[in-house]
């Protein structure tokens, strides 16, 4: 595992390692991605444990080192999104979390629509597609997956109803997602006319109990103001929507995140002191104010790196004649991870779910191997 991505170049005092240090330029290559003006270099990193063996430096991965160095710092956490630093981890694992978040953490989404009436201008299929993409406020952990031959029941299906009409002679109305009504008792549509009166009507779901009894809080939609359709006077929509559990791999509607991504920690290094007007210019060049001016007294000015985190890699500072005085780098094992949840689960829960899924996968591999 690469080293912790801090600036202090401490060398681990592992017992099997000598007091060897890589030369600076190799250390940079090993731990940083250097973003030159033309192209980034050293993006790959060194995976082989013995890469630097000749110099007496161990490049291997070990659990102890990982446990020692790994760190998570949460920068921001709101209801819908979070940003945290994941330090001391390889890109492949950080990426695995990202990939799992996007594609494999399950959520509930509308999958089946029973269209009773749709006289709006929006075609049935398009309306269904739109409904499918609405984020639902339903904890997927409380539900099971439904397979093709399963009967929809209270454990695998959530039923919503949408019944809006625009009366004749009135103004045009906009149907918002808030009109979706949760039906805890299951479907209200009967499959066919009852054979005998007195029989319980057969509906499209077979709930054995109300979902109200299973669930602690009522289900609904996450955002109330998503436009579903517009209705003109005399038009109406009546439908029932069945939501099931699924993963983003199958369809993006099941993805629990709007997006999840990371970026490597920016590191901006001033290679040579920049003073005077050049410093002013450098500060001005940067649109995100990475640099600041240090007053050297008696009118002298020197550019310093103030907010390296803000760097968006516009590379203005490394271009031009003075471009070689600054170097933009990314720390290879420090990830600034962002999760934007769609709302079914809070972002921090999503991440733990993702970890669980990865764990599960690892266990599967181990059990398959043994």
């Amino acid at each position, binding site marked *: 595992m690469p080293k912790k991505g801090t600036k202090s170049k401490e060398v681990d005092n592992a017992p099997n390692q000598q007091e060897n240090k890589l030369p600076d330029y190799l250390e940079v290559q090993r731990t940083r991605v250097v*973003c030159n003006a033309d192209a980034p270099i050293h993006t790959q990193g060194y995976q082989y444990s013995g890469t630097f063996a000749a110099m007496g430096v161990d490049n291997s991965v070990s659990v102890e080192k990982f446990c020692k160095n790994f760190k998570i710092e949460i920068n921001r956490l709101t209801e819908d999104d979070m940003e945290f630093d994941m330090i001391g981890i390889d890109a492949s694992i950080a990426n695995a979390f990202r990939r799992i978040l*996007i594609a494999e953490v399950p959520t509930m989404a509308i999958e089946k629509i029973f269209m009773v009436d749709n006289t709006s201008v929006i*075609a*049935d299929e398009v309306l269904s597609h739109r409904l499918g993409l609405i984020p639902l406020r339903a904890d997927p952990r409380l539900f099971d997956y439904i397979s093709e031959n399963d009967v929809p029941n209270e454990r695998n299906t959530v039923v919503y109803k949408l019944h809006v009409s625009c009366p004749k002679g009135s103004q045009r109305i906009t149907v918002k997602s808030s009109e979706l009504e949760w039906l805890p008792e299951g479907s209200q549509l009967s499959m066919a006319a009852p054979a005998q009166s007195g029989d319980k009507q057969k509906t499209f779901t077979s709930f054995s109990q109300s979902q109200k009894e299973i669930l602690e809080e009522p289900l609904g939609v996450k955002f109330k103001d998503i436009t579903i359709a517009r209705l003109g006077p005399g038009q109406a929509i009546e439908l029932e929507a069945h939501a099931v559990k699924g993963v983003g791999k199958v*369809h993006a509607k099941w993805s629990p995140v709007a997006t999840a*991504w990371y970026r490597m920690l920016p590191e901006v290094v001033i290679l040579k002191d920049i003073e005077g007007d050049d410093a002013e210019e450098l500060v001005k060049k940067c649109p995100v104010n990475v640099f600041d001016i240090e007053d050297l007294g008696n009118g002298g000015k020197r550019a310093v790196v103030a907010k390296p985190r803000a760097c968006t890699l516009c*590379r203005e500072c490394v271009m031009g004649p003075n471009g070689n005085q600054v170097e933009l780098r990314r720390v290879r094992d420090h990830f600034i991870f962002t999760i934007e949840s769609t709302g079914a689960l809070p972002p921090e829960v999503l991440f733990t779910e993702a970890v669980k899924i990865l764990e599960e996968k690892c266990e599967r591999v181990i059990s398959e191997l043994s």
Partner: protein
Amino acid sequence: MAVLAKGDNEGGKVVDTMPLPTYHSLAAPVRKPVDKFALLPAFLKVRGLVKEHIDSFNYFIDKGIKKIVEANNRIEARNDPSIYLRYLDVRVGMPSIYENCNVESITPHLCRLTDRTYSAPIEVDIQYTVGKQHVVKRRNKFIIGYMPIMLRSSACILNEMDEDELAKYGECPLDPGGYFVVKGTEKVILIQEQLSKNRIIVDTDSKGRVIASVTSSTHAIKSKTVVLMDKGKIYLQLNQFTKPIPIIVVMKAMGMESDQEAVQMVGRDPRYGDLLFPSIQECASERIYTRQQALQYMDEKVMYPGATNNKEGRSNSILHDVFIAHVPVKDGNLRPKCIYTAVMLRRMLDAILNSDTFDDKDYVGNKRFELSGQLISLLFEDLFKTMNSQAVERMNKNSDKTRSSPLDFSQLIMQDTITFGLERAISTGNWDIKRFRMHRKGVSQVLSRLSYMATLGYMTRITPQFEKTRKTSGPRALQPSQWGMLCPCDTPEGEACGLTKNLALLSHITTDQEEGPLIDLCHSLGVEDLLFLSSEEIHAPGSFLVMLNGLILGKHKDPQRLVIHLRNLRRSNVIGEFVSIFINEKQRCVHIASDGGRVCRPLIIADMGISRIDETHMTKLRDGTYDFDDFLSGGLIEYLDVNEENNALIALYEHMDQDDVERSSITHIEIEPLSILGVVSGLIPYPHHNQSPRNTYQCAMGKQAMGNIAYNQLFRADSLLYLLVYAQRPLLTTKTIELVGYDKLGAGQNATVAVMGYSGYDIEDAIVMNKSSLDRGFGRCIALKKYTVLKDNYVDGVSDRIVKPQRDKDGVLMKQNMRALDDDGIVAPGQIIRNHDIYVNKQTPMNTSKGIGRPLTDSCYKDSPAIYKGVDGETTVVDRVMLCSDTNDKLSIKCIIRHTRRPEVGDKFSSRHGQKGVCGTIIQQEDFPFSERGICPDLIMNPHGFPSRMTIGKMIELLGGKAGVSCGRFHYGSAFGEPSGNADNVADISSTLIKHGFSYNGKDFLYSGILGQPLEAYIFMGPIYYQKLKHMVLDKMHARASGPRVLLTRQPTEGRSRDGGLRLGEMERDCLIAYGASMLIFERLMLSSDPYQVQVCRKCGLLGYYNHKLKTSYCSMCKNGENMAKMRLPYACKLLFQELHAMNVVPRLKLTEV
């Protein structure tokens, strides 16, 4: 300035940046440049996109039709001229239909839906005699037929309606009109390009001879006169003569007996005399000195088709009527024709002496554009005359037979001639008018409703007259005179390349204007009539000839003054705005043109290089107190046609100096440079940065893009309609896009594109798409298809019937494929319909030839259901069902079936820069690269698409789009728009990008979605407007194992529609032969095709047969079954043998043992 421009990108408000000042403009005191752009929308508001069509049709409805009727206003019985009918007046009424004895007004949309013709009655006021006493009666509003009405013309109900009213009539406000609705289909009469009539064209023919030709066209006659020089001698060539006639003979025949005068008429220059000398000598050698002798000589050469004798006097009448027929002959005075001939000769000799003066046939000034009004007027004239002559015919027949019945012309006029004649011509596109010797095909075409752009493109299209097969490059080349008139980009590829053209945005095509007032005006301005001048004086030095529409009006001693006066009169609205005044120094002529079919365009008038329009005018325009017509009448703007442009010096911008142009000599200023492009090419952003063929490709492709077609698209009944579900407005727009309304009816989506290689499925322009983007609706489209079923009526009131789906006693459907049916036997809207499902459960009577008299029972009907043929496994939905009775009173059932499709591998996409590509693969979002801001591209394009195509415009579009999304302002990329602020500069865009933390060059730092590591290059990424084209795999995919066979040959069928096999063709066969794969050939050509077992008689070598009862084979030729052998051969081979037998050819098979 550049700094100022940087500041305005924020805030979403468009601040028009002033162009960068040049060295000159800094030095000279210049006025602040005026933002003239507002003139463009003003022009289009007044003139519209298809105003030329509508103008032309209006002219016909208002004036043309009256002229035609007036010219033929009296018909009378042949044997009794006192029985007559007179047309007093003619009008075209409001569109209506005559049905069941009452008149119903109709709307265009109703016609589209019910397969009717949108037409209006032609009402005439007539005066006619009734009865034997010839009592004169008058009748008003007598209908002589129905005229198809052009939408949005003055006779259309939609004329001058606002958006709300249009919506009420089911019409799209953005629809340009200018087309007809005939039998429910929308038909455009394309603009026809032809050589201008009544003008002298000096050219060389195929043999390299110098010729001067005139195509004369008057109401009475059309003729072509050619004067040519062969071996130094000049001849006249006319179709009526068998041989070319020496020109001096013709002059003599017209009364120009003196050779001296003839030469004087041509000109006093001795070089003319030298060139004319051989011709004069030839005439003298034929011993022709007098008019009589000349006429006699010409009589000999007259061509008589069929007739034998009586040639005398023919040539004289030919000279009067056919020879340069457009020159009027008053009281038998042929002198004008003499002068005209002399002018022709002079032009010809000029061309010989100085090859610069040859005319260029491809020069746009020598072209005329025929519009729908003119074409319909020709058709109407013919039909009107036919109708009248038919009436006379009937009158004559009537008067012979029944003398007692009252004779009355008004009863003999049949409406059908005109109604059906017009309808037939417009719906088939065949203009066959014998009277004018006109046989044209494809004049009208179905208006393509594939996309809004396709519709607009059709309306501006110009088709050539001559055949397309010619390989000549001349007419196909881009003419400099097309500047501003015809679009330089928009032309198809392939055989019609360069021949089919499109109008530019601001161009206009003129209609005919009255000549009379112009002639009077010219005379009062000092034009001297040539009839009062001697031959010598015609070409007096310093004086110029004045020609009006190709006719010699006279001469003027101070042509410059005449021209200035006339132009001033035009600018002050005394004469029409479309009159062109053009002084040709080479020809020493002033050409005045008021004829129809010239292209012209508006330009700002400048005095000594200073624009007449200043900011006050533009403020008034923006406030709405001024409109475009005020600019015209105020003498600020005028229309120049291609010829008059040659007298003008047009500056692109007022405030920019050109190094080699004297500012004071500038006469006009362009309104906007983007107006040199047409409507379709106007939607390309930064076209001036692209390689030119790319723009041409885009013009063809923009018409295939799916999107929104019209506001009424969901209420239309087109046979095939492709719609994009979430069509967007392009992030990088152009001014043209806003002008034509493409921002309201877009045909594409803004996709975030990363330019990089990915996955290897992106070679050969293929693109890699993001699955999540597709899940979220990118490129989703709806295909609406119409299926029509007719409920036929037969004799005796027997008709087809539509029955409800048959069920058994449990109520279960008898057939599974009836599940989509409603109880009325027609498919129910909203139902899912699958392959092989019935959509109309129709039954036809067994016996349709004649009725039985009694009501038919169920057993008399046989099922003839309409079965839906779709793709297996795809769910399609019935969108709408429409019932209407068609023109023959049959019930027609139109089912519109909808299919929503998401993009799949193989679907075709294109950006707006002629960069098409198919979807190569679809990849999960998590595998896609992502940027530091979490942006993940919608599609990935391979960078190899750029170097050879050189579509820099696409790169700038990406940059501009990226800057646009980050600063919240739509960026512009109008053609040549950078100096005038109609396109954003790359420098400004880059500074916006930097301000929002992007790299100036649009390249982002991306992480690999698979590895998680950064990519080893910065990736050019940003939004580009992508179009989904109509070519989709679903419609084309085809494969089969074994399947249907053709009945006759027993070979597999051909073509996708018949589920045909894939042919192993000749060349493929050659490969297999060369390779030696004989068993494979045998398998392909025989076993997999049409194997057949035959019995061959070894003795006679003919085919026998197998008797299944006796279980023996038998040769019917040898009358025994002794020497029979079994063999296999292709069925087609057996068929060939039998066919040869039938032709008395005996093929014999000689069999040997192997």
